[in-house]
């Protein structure tokens, strides 16, 4: 299934896997968790990829930090939003042990700095005029910073998948809050950008890739997603960004759209894009991002 398009991308991923088991953003570069996670999802359940996946898991397991988070890359000791990607990987591969539970616990503990007592007090005192709704706890790129769309989306996907097994009220509450944050940050045009819909009372435009990601977070909330879906379908028709097109294809298929198979082409040199294009193919593993509503 998937023909040349999908096979060339999977083969390309297998060919550029690093000796440490991970993938870099580009061939020959150091391993990072983000492209590694997408490559593992793209190769999931592919018989020819079993050994590669096993090597990748050894790296992912080694990269978990004592606090339950994951380091961002081979050269980076700090953890970032990629913890959510690692938790999603655990769910997909049925690794429900301590590694995953520590990761889930950490995801539940992290929220954007706008929820801190200091910021809420300053806001209450009128030190600043808030243009964004900051009442919903969501997720930052890095602990201690403010919440933004993409890290929130990945955390929601990770927790929704974890909830299918764990069934915890705290997970449900965080997901519902995260979804509310995503809804609150929608741009005036119906889509989403990185998370700043208005600046100085001027509307900011949405981005195709962010709109796709937001729709993945809002699975199971059709009323909240309706305008975004229309925007995503328009973006899917018009965008020239291969990255955005891949995310849009993944998101629209998660919402039940049937997409045409892309014409055969060689894999891009961008490893993360290669993985996302493989995932996005109608015969690819885009269904791994399907979550439905929170259980």
């Amino acid at each position, binding site marked *: 299934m998937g023909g040349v398009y999908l096979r060339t991308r999977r083969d390309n991923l297998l060919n550029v896997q690093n000796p440490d088991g991970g993938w*870099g*953003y*580009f061939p020959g*570069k*150091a391993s*990072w968790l*983000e492209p590694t996670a997408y490559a593992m999802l793209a190769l999931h359940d592919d018989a020819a990829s079993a050994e590669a996946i096993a090597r990748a898991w050894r790296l992912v397991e080694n990269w978990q930090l004592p606090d339950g988070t994951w380091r*961002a*890359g081979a*050269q*980076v*000791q*700090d953890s*970032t*939003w990629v913890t959510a990607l690692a938790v999603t990987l655990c769910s997909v591969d049925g690794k429900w042990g301590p590694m995953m539970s520590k990761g889930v616990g950490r995801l539940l503990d992290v929220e954007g*700095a*706008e929820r801190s007592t*200091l*910021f809420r007090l*300053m*806001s209450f005192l009128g*030190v*600043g*005029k*808030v*243009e*964004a709704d*900051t009442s919903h706890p969501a997720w*930052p*790129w*890095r602990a*201690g*910073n*403010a*919440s*933004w769309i*993409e*890290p929130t989306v990945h955390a929601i996907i990770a927790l929704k998948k974890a909830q299918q097994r764990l069934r915890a009220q705290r997970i449900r509450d965080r997901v519902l809050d995260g979804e509310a944050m995503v809804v609150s940050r929608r741009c005036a045009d119906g889509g989403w*950008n*990185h*998370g*700043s*819909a*208005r*600046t*100085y009372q*001027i509307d*900011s*435009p949405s*981005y195709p*890739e962010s709109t796709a990601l937001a729709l993945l977070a809002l699975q199971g909330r059709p009323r909240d997603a309706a305008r975004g879906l229309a925007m995503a379908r328009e973006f899917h028709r018009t965008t*020239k*960004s*291969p*990255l*955005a097109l891949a995310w849009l294809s993944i998101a629209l298929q998660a919402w039940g759209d049937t997409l045409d198979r892309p014409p055969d082409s060689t894999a891009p040199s*961008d490893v*993360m894009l290669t993985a996302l294009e493989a995932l996005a193919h109608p015969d690819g593993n885009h269904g791994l991002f399907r979550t439905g509503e929170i259980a």
Partner: protein
Amino acid sequence: MNRRAFVGFATVGVASSYAVTKLGGGQQAPLADGPHGDSAVAILKAESYSADLVRVMLDGAKACGLDVRGKRVLLKPNLVEFDATTAINTDPRVIAAAYEVMRTLGAAEVWIGEGPGHRRDTYDLADQARYFETIPSFERIFTDLNRDDVSPVKNFAGEDRFYFPNTALRADVVVSLAKMKTHHWAGATLAMKNFFGLVPGSVYGWPKNKLHFIGIDEAIVALNRTFRKTFAIVDGIIGMEGNGPIQGSPKHAGVLVMGSDLVSVDATCCRIMGIDPEKVGYLRMAADLGHVRASRIQQRVERIDAVRTPFVLIERFQGLRLV
């Protein structure tokens, strides 16, 4: 901590009085004297992007004594977002000319690198901004700094370690190919602020919110303390006024501003734009790195008066207006 942290939060979409109180008035510490000697800044007229920009830049490089022989040069344009109705990004013809100038001046290698702050698909942004079609061999010489391999640097803005792209750390000279724009948080975004794009999104996100929590002014200065072997070419042929750096209006100033002291380059750009650089927070903070005072800057080729083009400032920055 409180003030810095609040600005970091503020970038979610909060308009605070922080910038005005900090930049516009109140008691300010005396401006530092700056390093020994004066700084040379070249102001060069270029009415349009159709001008012979290579010749213009070579004149500027000569006026500033730029020497890149045998060096690895990283050209760092300002590529933020694309909107065909305005002028957000460094024009590709300026980048192409700068590339040719560096090769002509004997640079061993010339690279181009950028890490946009909001968009994930840097290559698509570059395509929309016509970088691929305008800059020869762009794909071969360009690095997405957001996804480059990285190395830690110690003691950046009080952080034990802060990660930067290896391409930037390996360069002998980083050339800030900035756009002349107003900025709704910093007052102006010029050669120094352009270094935000040296911070990798793969570690700090999109946007690089960590810098906002460090403090925008503080982060600008910290970046310029870290990257000291630098040169600047500011694209003011068509800049941006009003609600920059993204939602402002195009402003024709018909000028390129060049120099190796980025503080002086930015101070000169401010004076051209009708902004008092001595009131701009990050320039005051950086006054030990370079010269802000006009008396310490040797303006080469053209005088400021010959190119002065007041930019529209948003209300909160009216206090920055040069009197």
